[in-house]
């Protein structure tokens, strides 16, 4: 899918919008060992024993470009890259200069680089700007137990960790109990919002019968938290529910020690989950439900140091890697203005991979080209641009 503007009519959401699946890698995922800058000799000097070897040549399946190669565990993504539906943005991030996971996740989810500024999430603010297509409770959902900050600011985003298990069975419905609950959570009761959203969502889910929606095209999801969450995202997208935004967490990326072992497990889980989702949703050209109408964004709070630490891991750094997948992605490329990996011991900032592509540039372009347009001043206040990295088709 290399041509632009193939948007087909989706049965449930406006024609100018993709469905967005946002995957947040919690714990500061390393980018340097995921998409390896093998052309840069400093990578091998600094990473030493934990470095990933260079591809044997352009025939090596890990080969992406003369500069970059995949970690072996990411090989399931290679066909998607080759099919131009996957772009990898290297040396990216939001320039917040924070190395605390918790504070940095908070800033990145809010789409700000200073503690001041709106306390809602960048995606929540975007959703608040763009009118909902229906009164469904299913516009924005986090497949987890809790609403992430990213969605804060949208009207009652759902947080459901097991969709096919959300609700009461018939004898409880028949008892009138849910109706009594709905009446008890009248306006002014402190958590009436999520309570009523939960009751509404139960009814919609029962009608949608997600359990009957099984993976298509032979897709096999890993039996991992991420795989299970993406499987549910696919069920939602293939259902009649007018979902527009799905947020998912991928946990466990904080590899302070034994990085080669742990990152292989994490990357393998990520690649197999994304590949299964891609296959399951399908090319779908003209059906309106395929990957032409779905964009996946994978990102993290910050990257790792260039050099390895004393326990074959890496400590907290700055820039990392973002993954963009979908028919609307200008794929088959590694988007990067490579900053180099030279460490000057007198300049602490040079310990880290520097940000050369602001993540806000990529997300702004995504919202403008794939989600019907946005107001960048509201979504990323204070962000001067640039507003495109040529990462998406219009």
């Amino acid at each position, binding site marked *: 899918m290399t041509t632009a503007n193939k948007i087909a009519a989706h049965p449930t959401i406006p024609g100018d919008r993709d469905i967005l699946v946002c995957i947040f890698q919690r*714990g500061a995922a390393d980018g340097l060992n995921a998409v390896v800058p093998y052309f840069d000799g400093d990578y091998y000097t600094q990473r030493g024993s934990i470095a990933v070897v260079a591809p044997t040549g352009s025939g090596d399946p890990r080969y992406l470009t003369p500069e970059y190669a995949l970690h072996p565990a990411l090989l399931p993504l290679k066909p998607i890259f080759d099919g131009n539906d996957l772009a990898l943005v290297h040396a990216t991030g939001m320039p917040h200069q924070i*190395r*605390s*996971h*918790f*504070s940095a996740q*908070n800033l990145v989810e*809010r789409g700000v680089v200073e503690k001041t500024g709106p*306390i809602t999430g960048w995606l929540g603010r975007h959703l608040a700007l763009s009118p909902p297509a229906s009164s469904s409770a299913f516009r924005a959902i*986090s497949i*987890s*137990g*809790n*609403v*992430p*900050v990213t969605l*804060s600011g949208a009207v009652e985003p*759902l*947080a*459901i*960790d*097991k969709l096919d*298990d*959300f*609700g009461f*069975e018939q*004898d*409880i419905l028949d008892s*009138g*109990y849910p*109706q*009594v*609950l709905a*009446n*008890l*959570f009248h*306006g*002014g*009761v*402190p*958590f009436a919002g*999520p309570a009523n*959203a939960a009751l509404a969502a139960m009814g919609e889910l029962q009608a949608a019968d997600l359990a009957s929606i099984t993976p298509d095209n032979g897709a096999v999801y890993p*039996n*991992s*938290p991420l795989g299970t969450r993406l499987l549910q995202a696919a069920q939602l997208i293939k259902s009649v529910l007018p979902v527009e935004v799905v947020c998912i*967490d991928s*946990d*466990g990326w904080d*590899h*302070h*020690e034994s990085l080669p072992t*742990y990152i292989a497990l*994490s990357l393998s889980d990520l690649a197999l989950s994304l590949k299964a989702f891609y296959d399951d949703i399908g090319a779908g050209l003209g059906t309106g439900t395929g990957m032409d109408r779905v964009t996946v964004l994978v990102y993290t709070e910050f990257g790792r140091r260039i050099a390895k*630490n*004393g*326990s074959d*891991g890496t*400590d907290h750094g700055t820039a990392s890697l973002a993954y963009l997948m979908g028919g609307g992605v200008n794929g088959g490329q590694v988007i990067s203005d490579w900053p180099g990996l030279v460490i000057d011991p007198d300049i*602490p900032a040079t310990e880290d991979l520097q940000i050369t592509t602001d993540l806000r540039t990529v997300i702004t372009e995504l919202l403008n080209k794939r989600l019907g347009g946005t107001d960048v001043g509201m979504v990323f206040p204070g962000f001067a641009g640039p507003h495109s990295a040529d990462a998406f088709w219009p």
Partner: protein
Amino acid sequence: MEKNEAFDLEAMFDRLHNRREFLQLLGRGLGYGALATLLPACGGGSTNATDDDAPPIAPTIPKPDPEYTVLKRSSFGPHRDELASIRTLGIDAYLEQQLDHLAIDESALEAEIALRFPLTLKTPPELLAGFPDNIFDVATQMIAAAQYRQMFSRRQLFEIMVEFWSDHFNIQLVNGLGPTLKPLDDRAVIRAHALGNFRELLHASAKSTAMLFYLDNFFNQAIAPNENYARELMELHTLGVDGGYTENDVKEVARCFTGWTLRLPGDPLGDYGDYVFVQAIHDDQPKAVLGNAILGGDQSDGEQVLDILAAHPATANFIATKLCRRFIGDRPPQAAIDAVANAFTTSHGDIKNTLRALFATAAFVDSGDHKFTRPSEYLAALVRALAPDTPRVPYPPAKSQFWFYAQSILGQLPFYWPTPDGYPDLQSYWASTGGLLNRWRLSFLSFAGIIPGVDVIQVDYAAMLNGADTINGIVDAIIDAVLMRPLNGDDRALIVQWLEGELGAGADEELTTAPPELAAALIAAVLVSSAYFHLR
């Protein structure tokens, strides 16, 4: 931060939403062996609510009385005997009694703990001997013991503070060697100092081998520093992220803690799991932390850092803010924070005196219903309200697995939060659609008392009803017994109308279409599902 642990939560409680099957499940009991493959993952840095994103709350439901509010905030749920006690003693005397926790005799409860959950009392070498086969038994016993104490201990304020410090100095239990080390940390660090002195608690935590392992400090050596503990020590344990330290301070503090490690398995020089300082891998060159020169060149480097941090004004402010968020509201008033921070500073970190200052703030009693209970409080409160006599009767050991599953589906299993920041303490995190549904499902626990053979808890509705036999009478009796706070008139009328329809009887007629106990269980299910029960 966390190690990479990925357990799947199987669908053991999938059928919780079916009243009949749920009750069968309650009665059936689940084999411990099944837990090996079923341990759930709780939370996981999955959200990161801001400090101040809770909407302003203006409850339209009648405020409970101050004694109820104090109990709801200083315990894991009001128990009718304790409500009577606080009304007799007065709030101040009741809280003083709770602060003097060692004067409350809990030898019988602790004997039960020793009998039922013996692995929680073992040493690291003893636990290593059974490791890794014992991981799940250690985990389930640690969790069950925590729940048992939250539900049944009369040292309720102490248990609240144990949970508070367990979150503050969070260590994920099932994490490498964690199951052999965390039980000792729980006893010798958290429980030993929960109502003691913060400086001593901090020093104990820094030498806790469970912490040294969890935050990678056992790797930290002069030739290859690991900053993980140093950063979290300042960000999460003391100063707070805005406490004024720099990235350079993180590096310097990491150098100060080089050589703080533990005796690993097979070390001939000492017992496994003991703390040890190894001078040979310590960076003995001078350091500078927060403007202070650190010159000792030995174990005193780290100890000096701990003293600097414990006495730092940012630490007083950070601890005070967290305590006020716990006991007052998601956005506590600055005046309360300042008063608590001041008491923390002037008492040199005496936790009881700090709490006394908090309890003396106007906001503590006045802001009733401003907090949303966390799952541990909700679950224990269910038992304490529905089955107030349960602590007096034997607690069926096999049934502790029920509480394990119940708390896991609610997402707050003790010692299971993977990242070092501990479980969140904000309504915006817990009052989610999914979280509410799971609480509503558990509300059908109110039926346990009317099904023979279901003895996870024993609900004695006959005692609560005290002869009431009309819908109006039953509603009032159950509100009084289970909710212990007034309902607004419209809400009460709604419940009465619903029962009239459901049971086919008039509100003031003697109920003949169903046993009063069934009506009582229905009412209880609705009451414990409502905002009245989930706020504190």
